[in-house]
Every structure is written in structure tokens, then in C-alpha cells.
């Protein structure tokens, strides 16, 4: 193996977002495949676009701290980075840096609260970020099939719905492969355009 030369540039990174409501399993998913224990990274955002009642009882009315999970997998000098979005949509939707440079996204949905994923789906659609919908099925059990879930999500194609167990590495890997396939198609289309 080549000795690391200190003048060499670092590797290249690919950023994938993991979105989903509180308790949908984002941290679990990242932890299942990351080579490091997921880290918690914070940023401070202003609350300009939140409504007055959101601020009730908040000691600092100007800013709020958002936290995301970070995990990575290294392949040679390439690094796949996973960023778990903060639990509350209204905070990360006004965080342009979070979505900037993202090559794709996984939207984790809980079939008991499908509507909770609508804002994230609309957001990625609007930002042009390729995404898949991952339905977390503990022990591979799910009462609905992909077609039913796609129909319930309205704008989503059945092919973009994958059934996963967020605790299983192989299952999470397959979901990431599905996201990468969409990112690769997007990149190829941009190259030939």
C-alpha cells in the first residue's frame, strides 16, 4: 500500500440524507451500517419562520439548536456519509446547508403515520434530490405491500418503495444501493444534458 503523502488531497465524499419522523428509526438505520458509532452533530439556526406558539417557553427566542446523526462508510479514499435529519421537519427545512450537495435521500416511513412523511417527500421533490421511501418492517413484518404504500403516498412510484429492517446491515445496504442507483441515473442524465 502507498504511504500517505501529506501533500496528497483528502478523499471524496458522497452525502446521503436519512429523513423521517421522530421514532422512525433514522439513528438505528445509520448505526446498522456506519463503521463508526453514529455521532451527534449540532448547528444553531434562527427560528424566523416558526410561529409564535412554537416559541412559548423557549428561553432563547432567536435561535434553536438542531442535532443530526452522522455516520460513514469508507471505501478506499471514498467516503459515503449518512446524515440523519433532525426530528422536527420545520427546523431542517430551513437549513439549506443540510440538503446542499446531497446526492440522494432515504425517507423512512412509519405506516401508522404515513402523513408524517409528506413534507419530507415534497421537500426532496422540490429540491430535486433523488430519494426512496423505506418502510421499516421489524422482523420483516408489514401489513401493507409496496403498491398500497405508494398509492397512499400519492406522488410516489411503487418502484421507489423498499421494505427494510433498519436494524439489519444487509437491509440498509440494499436501501442505499437503491438510492445510489437513482443518484447515478441523475448524474448520467446531467452529464449528457
Amino acid at each position: 500500500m502507498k504511504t500517505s503523502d501529506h501533500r496528497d488531497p483528502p478523499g471524496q465524499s458522497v452525502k446521503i440524507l436519512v429523513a423521517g419522523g421522530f421514532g422512525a428509526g433514522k439513528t438505528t438505520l445509520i448505526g446498522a451500517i456506519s463503521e463508526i458509532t453514529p455521532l451527534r452533530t449540532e448547528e444553531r439556526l434562527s427560528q424566523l419562520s416558526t410561529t409564535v406558539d412554537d416559541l412559548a417557553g423557549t428561553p432563547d427566542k432567536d435561535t434553536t439548536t438542531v442535532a443530526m446523526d452522522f455516520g460513514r462508510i469508507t471505501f478506499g479514499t471514498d467516503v459515503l456519509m449518512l446524515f440523519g435529519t433532525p426530528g422536527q421537519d420545520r427546523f431542517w427545512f430551513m437549513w439549506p446547508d443540510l440538503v446542499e450537495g446531497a446526492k440522494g435521500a432515504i425517507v423512512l416511513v412509519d405506516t401508522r403515520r404515513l402523513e408524517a412523511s409528506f413534507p419530507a417527500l415534497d421537500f426532496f421533490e422540490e429540491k430535486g434530490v433523488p430519494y426512496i421511501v423505506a418502510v421499516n418492517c421489524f422482523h420483516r413484518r408489514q401489513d401493507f405491500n409496496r403498491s398500497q404504500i405508494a398509492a397512499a403516498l400519492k406522488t410516489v412510484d411503487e418502484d421507489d418503495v423498499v421494505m427494510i429492517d433498519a436494524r439489519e446491515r444487509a437491509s440498509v445496504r440494499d436501501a442505499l444501493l437503491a438510492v445510489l442507483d437513482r443518484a447515478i441515473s441523475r448524474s448520467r442524465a446531467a452529464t449528457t444534458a
Partner: protein
Amino acid sequence: MASHRGVRPFTWTAPRLAAPSAEDGRRITMQTLIRTTAPPDRLASVPEKWQTVLRLADRPTGIAVAEIAANLRLKLTPTAALVAELENRALVTHQGLVGDNGPDTELLLRIRTGLENL
């Protein structure tokens, strides 16, 4: 609490991670990989917090700004500012300086192959 008055660091909706640059590719983001370029003998002469970053980033792939932030227990914006300072002093280099913002199909394909072989 009162110490914040008049010293509000961020008054915009979402802070940019570093001063916006004309060459946007040079911008330091949460996913930017940072790599130490300083020879090990320079470590002793820099502040402790910088040393931590230089140790974290002393690997061929480099380390993400998000990961440095988590390790230092700093928020992203001050972490990016710290990294920019280290870059100014030629202690680190980063992905944005490589200037590779072209089509990334090859990179995505390599990552895909890596994942498949996991």
C-alpha cells in the same frame, strides 16, 4: 444569558458554514473532507484544540467537518471557521480545494461497488 445581547452571531435564517466565496467549490461544508498537511513536528506549536483537529484529520481519506464538530463538541459553523483558519495557515487541505465539482458518476459508481461488496 444577557451576554448574548448585541453579539448575536447569526441573524440570518440559516448560517452559511463559512464566509461565502466567489469560488463556491472552496466552501467548507459539513461533508467536506479535511486532511492534515502539517508535518507532525508542527503540532506542538499550535493550540490544543487545533492539535485535536490535526490528529483527527491525519489520515489519507481526511475527516468530515461534521465529524470534527462532533468530536470537539462544537457546532458546525464555528467548526468550519476553525478549519478555514487551519487552511489559511497551511496546516490542512480540504476537498473543496481539489476543485472537483464536475460530474460525479464515477465516484457514485465506486461507492456503489463498495457497498455491494460489503
